[in-house]
């Protein structure tokens, strides 16, 4: 089946969704957003593609298997607990690095951001794994 409207809409919407999901992830610490929301948005983009063009097409553009997304997400999350352990002796203790940029601005990078990225990846992976599996089972398209 070919959903013309979906296919045309998808071309624009997927890009926007992915872009915003990443934006949401990074601004999450100070403004509404974060890994969980970002992950849901990113997965939404690929679900949209799967609905419009089929699971295989969506899988191809994702390039990485959802199960691997989950694994790498969990890995990043665990990884982010270690710097605190080695620096302060406490698991999960947030550790921050301040990188001075031009014009007096500073970029603050910390383990919570790494952790949030882990959340982002694993949430995306979980949702996509669930939906792809179900869609394949029911032979969508």
């Amino acid at each position, binding site marked *: 089946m070919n959903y013309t409207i979906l296919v045309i809409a998808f071309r624009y919407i997927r890009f926007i969704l992915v872009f915003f999901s990443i934006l949401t992830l990074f601004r999450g610490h100070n403004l509404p957003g*974060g*890994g969980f929301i970002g992950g849901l948005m990113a997965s939404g983009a690929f679900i949209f593609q799967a609905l419009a063009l089929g699971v295989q097409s969506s899988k191809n553009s994702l390039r990485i298997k959802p199960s691997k997304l989950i694994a790498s997400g969990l890995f990043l999350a665990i990884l982010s*607990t270690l710097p605190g352990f080695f620096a302060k002796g406490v698991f999960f203790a947030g550790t921050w690095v301040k990188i001075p940029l031009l014009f007096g601005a500073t970029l603050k990078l910390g383990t*919570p951001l790494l952790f949030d990225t882990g*959340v982002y990846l694993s949430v995306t992976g*979980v949702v996509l794994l669930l939906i792809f*599996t179900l*869609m394949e089972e029911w032979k969508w398209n």
Partner: protein
Amino acid sequence: MTIILLIIFLGAAGSLLIPRQLDRHKGILLSLLPLTAFVFYLIKGYHMKQVGPEITSIAWLPQLGLNITWLFDGVSLLFLFLVSGIGVLILIYSNSYMKHDEGRHRFYFFILLFMGAMLGLVLSGNLLVMFLFWELTSFTSYFLISFKHEYDKARQAAMQSLLITVMGGLALFAGILLLGQMGGTYELAELVEKGHLIRFHPHYFPALLLILAGVVTKSAQFPFHFWLPGAMQAPSPVSAYLHSATMVKAGIFLLARMSPIMGGTPEWKILVSLIGGLTMFVGAYLAITQTDLKAILAYTTISALGTLVLLFGIDTQLSVKAALIFLIVHAFYKASLFMVAGMIDHKTGTRDINLLGGLRRLMPKTTVVTVLALLSMAGLPPLLGFIGKELIYEAKIQTPGIASVVLILGVASNVFMVWVSAMFGYRTFFGKLGTTPKVANEKGWELLFGPSVLAFGSLALGLFTNSLGQLIELALSTVRAQPLHVEIHLWHGFNQVFLLSVITVAAGVFLFSIRQKLLPVLAKINSRFFAYRFADLFNRLLDNFVKFSKNKTAVIQHGYHRFYLMTILVVATAFVWFQIYVTRGWDIQYDFSPIPFYVLVLTLIMIFSALTAAFAQNRLTAIISMGVIGFGIALIYLFYGAVDLAITQILAETLTVVLFVLVIQKMPRYAKFSSRKSRVRDAIIALSSGSFVTILVLNALQIDYNDPISDFFIKNSLPGGFGENVVNVILVDFRALDTLGEITVLSVAALGVYTLIKMNKVRK
């Protein structure tokens, strides 16, 4: 101490990374690990007599009395030598034995893991840590027994041994906790000093029973002995290592550790020696009628373990000394016999003594080694087994009170042992050449290396007892908790004990010579009363238990989603309404801020869609109406400033609708609508649960927080978490552990769905 253990554990993981080119020498390469450990312990043990026992402690969870304490004393030294020394030989043996096995990488991994666990177990100075290693040995044993997991029998035997040892382990854990409460510590070294306190404590007896349950199951004592013959499904190196030389000795090790703390009481003496004596006799008796080489060895192992338990039960200085020596004796001859049995199996293709025979012509070197080991098992001079047996007899003669019973059982068991040894050797290596599936040879030095070292070791230690005496002296002083001097002699002179030995050997040989007449009778008796009865009984018990829980589960887990929901809602409603009734929860002071016009409109839309969903004629309408409610809630969140919540709600709602649409398009149309009766019932449930939620929410407004926790988060979010978005800082910093748990649960759930659906496809 810690480093050696780490080397073994890391070696287990590292064994999987050994490059393919070195595959042929894998066992020999890996044997360097236990060799390092052995040499290390040898050097440290050499100085122990001057330095004394060494205790190193690392705090782990001191609040619970949980420290990683290594207690390096005489007893642990004895066991460390056995575990690491025999480990070296086993790995060399495996190099040839497992060479062509597909699963050899798995094998090496688990056997090294076991080795680490066993070394940790005998080094532990803290009971809780010891328990951890204790369980780890059970698990690795499970994986090694089920090594050939494509065979039903292997899986069953593995499950049986796991269930029995783990149940015993659970009892042991309870016993350890009781012991810790009585003594106020889990440190062995401190508990020994509080021994008198524990022995007169009212909880002494239950604790003893629980700990003995652990010993009895782990060391395959009657009536839990049946898992050990079953465990012979494991590859021969495993049988030789775990199920004769080391793991089954863990129970004995525990007895040796408990002896200075709990030993010496009448309860200990009666219980322990009763169990041990029975096992000793039953094991030896059942060994005679076996025809499988490994089964014969398994039953003699049970008997030997019974002897060890009995000796700890007699609990005199002499008996403990005999036990410690016999421990070494048994490990030496039994490990070498198991390796030989495996080798014969490997080379001839069978382990049945009815098919074997005359192998001495094809395997002359093996014959010499086996005969030496068998002589040690039969307890003949000048081998180490002779010393062991003499000391055991001496200890039994001097048993206070029950010497005669113990002695008769002991002599009978030893007569059987002599008989079995004669049978094992004669039927395998002498007589006519048997018709075996393969023609035997002796190629592969690795196979014969271990048995020869151990067999000639028995001979050497029997003749030169000096170094053995020093080791036993250290161990005995630890068990008896006082410095003692030990000298071991091969020759004790012509005395009562020697007379008993002569009688034993004569009787054993005599019985062997008339076996043609005896064996059929015994086989008949055994098949009627003993054979496999215990294992069968256990299996039936297990089957019935599974059936029972299946029935119960079928009632509770009926599979109708609507009834699950109904159960949850009705129960919750009943409880909450009861509470509301008791506290007059409906008296709410209405003190609302004015509601904006658009919120009111939104609410009306939501109410309308809720009604639409309830009365919808097809699924799609219902789902979309539910979606409207979800989005409405998201908008309300937005009005009141909960932006994160609103976004999440919108996204979750979208996904839910997508999922629903996916599902329903594959479902049939509404075939039939609920009857009027059930609609009324559903309406009542829905209204009452909806109303209690409403009342709860209204009540929640009234609650006066003295110090809301949100203040803390708001205050600390920027300075502590460097974030202005409090919700996010809570998620990824303050409560990051919760979040980690949540994403893990999500991942597991997704993988569960994936496996269920994909597996179902495979089955079709």
